[in-house]
């Protein structure tokens, strides 16, 4: 696939303006949806496309829409998850900053499909620029009749609100997001009940990621078969890969789902710079297990990556060359998850801090020979035992780092310091929480 759809902004300068967007076929998908399809037909179309959520979990989008109650007197809400916070992930931001009307169009069609008349975009607070761009786009859309009452004469009404979070990773968890949107502390909710029946303000709610929603207009215009023809049958479609770290050309790449990881690193991103060699790659954002250099011949789709022992997640590809101390890298990730744990569930609240402390000791002095096993044990006790997946997100990378680079952990313990960064000043452990 050479044509860029989700990243059309790269080919069309000024696409964030509604005039430019309209000149290039903007809102045609919306008009088509209103003119040709009943809401349920759109739900079936998305089901047929096999579109899976791009936020990290990969849940089938059409199936999620289908969980909404058929008859309800309550309003149905759409909450667009734009709280992109996973280290190594920066794809939704590009859509919002460069092609906001693509997102709005996806929102309108999705809202029409699920009988929703108020949609919220929950955006990470730090993304002030994207927030401003989105509001500008929304004002433009209202002015052109793309939002508001009786959109394009269809009889369908929709209002869109952008809500800025205060910058907490947990707000990207779908129920934490809903709690925050309701004005409360973003503690993830226990399930059941699920948001499709008891979501925002207790009403049926669909939470979809920005990239997921952005796929919808293209499915409407080109059909489910077209979408399904891209990449593997069970997780098809165009996919945005965010590549960071030790590659020649880091950035966001739109490629077919299933593009091999090796191809992404060496062909699209130009390989490892400065003559160094690849040491490890996290394929799906900071929360996913790392691959070693000899594990990168894996198609980058949800099922293949999972079969290979990790997860596609948000497709945040983090590349590390042989200059990286894996204990230090593991420590940095643990420090992040410790800082971001909401503190609701015991294993996550206490476990993330414990992991960080053990890793801090190994990297900066005070490690023990038993620490590798201790890390595996702590991580094992955290995984699967909490309300949301943050404990898993903190534990999975640690397990993979220790398992695949165990000798480095043992070497750190034996030396009592980091052999690769012997003069590194100890970093203060996370204490302040904002």
């Amino acid at each position, binding site marked *: 696939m050479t044509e860029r759809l989700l990243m059309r902004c790269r080919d069309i300068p000024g696409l964030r303006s509604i005039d430019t967007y309209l000149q290039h076929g903007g809102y045609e998908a919306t008009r088509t949806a209103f003119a040709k399809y009943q809401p349920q037909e759109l739900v079936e179309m998305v089901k047929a496309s096999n579109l899976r959520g791009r936020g990290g979990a990969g849940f089938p989008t059409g199936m999620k829409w289908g969980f909404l109650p058929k008859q309800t007197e309550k309003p149905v809400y759409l909450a667009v998850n734009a709280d992109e916070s996973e280290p190594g992930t920066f794809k939704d931001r590009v859509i919002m900053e460069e092609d906001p009307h693509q997102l709005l169009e996806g929102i309108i069609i999705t809202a029409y499909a699920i009988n929703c008349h108020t949609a919220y975009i929950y955006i990470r607070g730090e993304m002030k620029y994207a927030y401003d761009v989105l509001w500008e786009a929304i004002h433009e859309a209202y002015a052109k009749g793309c939002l508001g009452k009786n959109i394009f004469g269809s009889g369908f009404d929709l209002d869109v609100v952008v809500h800025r979070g205060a910058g907490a990773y947990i707000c990207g968890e779908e129920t934490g997001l809903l709690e925050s949107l309701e004005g409360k502390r973003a503690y993830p909710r226990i399930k059941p009940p699920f948001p499709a029946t008891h979501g925002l303000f207790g009403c049926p709610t669909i939470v979809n990621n920005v990239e997921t929603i952005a796929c919808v207009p293209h499915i409407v215009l080109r059909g489910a078969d077209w979408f399904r023809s891209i990449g593997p049958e069970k997780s098809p479609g165009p996919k945005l890969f965010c590549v960071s770290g030790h590659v020649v050309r880091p950035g966001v790449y739109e490629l077919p789902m299933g593009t091999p990881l090796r191809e992404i690193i060496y062909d699209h991103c130009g390989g490892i710079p400065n003559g160094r060699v690849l040491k490890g790659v996290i394929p799906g954002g900071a929360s996913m297990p790392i691959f070693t250099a000899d594990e990168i011949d894996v198609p980058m789709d949800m099922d293949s990556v999972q079969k290979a022992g990790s997860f596609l997640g948000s497709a945040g590809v983090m590349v590390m060359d042989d200059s990286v101390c894996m204990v230090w890298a593991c420590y940095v990730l643990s420090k992040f998850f410790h800082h971001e744990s909401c*503190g609701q569930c015991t294993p996550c609240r206490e476990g993330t801090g414990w992991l960080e402390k053990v890793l801090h000791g190994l990297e900066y002095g005070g490690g023990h020979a038993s620490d590798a096993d201790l890390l595996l044990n702590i991580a094992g*006790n955290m995984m699967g035992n909490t309300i949301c997946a943050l404990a898993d997100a903190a534990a999975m990378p640690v397990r993979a780092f220790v398992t695949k680079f165990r000798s480095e952990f043992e070497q750190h313990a034996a030396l009592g310091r980091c052999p690769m960064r012997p003069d590194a000043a100890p970093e203060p452990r996370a204490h302040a929480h904002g």
Partner: protein
Amino acid sequence: MPTVEIDGRKIEVEDGRTVIEAADQAGIEIPHYCWHPGLSISGNCRMCLVEIEKAPKLQIACNTRVTDGMVVHTKSEKTTTAQKAVLEFLLINHPIDCPVCDQAGECKLQEYYMDYDRQRSRVPLGNKVKKSKAIPIGKHVMLDQERCVLCARCTRFLDEVTHTSELGIFQRGDHSEIDLAPGKTLDNPYSANVVDICPVGALTNRDFRFQARVWYLERTESVCGGCANGCNIEIYHREGRIFRFQPRANMAVNDYWMCDAGRSSAYGLQGEGRLQQALLRGEEAFVPTLWADAVDAVGRRLVETADRRGGQAIGIVVSAQASNEEIFLARRLAGALGARLAGVSVSPAGAYHDAFLIKADKNPNTQGLRAQGVDLGAGVGALTEAAGRGELEALVLVRSDVLAETTAGPALETLPYLAVLDSGHVAELQYASAVLPIGTYAESDGTFTNHAGRVQRFQRAVAAPGEARPGWQALADLLAVVTGAPAPATAADVFAALAAEGGAFAGLDHAALASSGQPLRA
């Protein structure tokens, strides 16, 4: 009804019940911190993780509804590993100072450690996250943030029951801590309930704190006498001293809660100011007298007055502070003498009340007086007027502080004979001819009828001080002197006689009243 198998036992449960409720029904303990039957399900502590066959991972028993055929394992390796893990996580940043923690003895962290954990710490002591200690956050409650397990019971109570939300959870991760919301103090009328529901030593009662180790204390089921609601309580006591009241669950009366005023009333039941000795007026001052002699003297004086001037020259006032048994015996006494009987139930003007538990009627048994047909209207006034006209020669006050409650003062000054049956040094003593000290409801068996007509039993927790007797016993002794018939031996016997009398109490069985009471016959 679905049937669930827990640890090999098949249990039939009501539809909609959770695994933790089903297990509880069968007497199988599933450890938990955050779950409380009176609060919404939070599911955060993860202590109740159990293995459920066919489920991909462990499930929390508090939020998992039972389905027919479900098979649950609470003792499997997976479950016990999770239990040990949760306890280890909870303890890594928790002070290990049970010997000096006020919650020792009733701390779920300590108890579950012994039952489900018992492993050595793998965390150096110096690595603990340190939080604040001993912060007074309200009139009744002290907060130790470092001991908190973040179960959120307190915040849910304040959000869902009192709707006052004084406490919140601040910070994140292992720095999370309970604290007051900006600008607030924990001062709602039910604030101390957060202490009861705190499973560890994070929230303690400022009155009870460091007063006693709970394992030394005995508990007695009772009913709060602070107002007409009759919240069910447990009286904690040791060697005759009352240390605290705590609510006892009764969904028909008070759910799981009680108010701070009722709780604090425990401290007013004992101490200085209690009458401990029967007294008869001598030439100038009271003369301490043996109980039997004092009762005999009062009884004979009443009989003599009735014989000489007729029973109508005798008045008996019984208050809504008295038990049903005391009211019954006061009625019998009035009947035997042909005396006039009046009831009194007075509360301070504008007394605090709300739509939840606290009633404006600060008497525990106003409905008991009504149910027994005692005049609560102009009765006391009529008696004092009669006294003023010289028609009344003797008056018996049963827990009736009529000076505080009525304008009876001048009448008492000229009254020839006044017998006072009370617990404390009420103002009427200055006019009294005889004083019979009686115990409080914490020192007696008996029943109260609450505002809704529910008859509830209380039991003697501690002995009355000195020579004081339970009120029913004092009245029974007096009745025996007046009638010459044997006195009933127990409060249960008195209640049985009351029920046998017919009327509103007919059909009620004293034993069946325990421990949640029964409604009066409509």
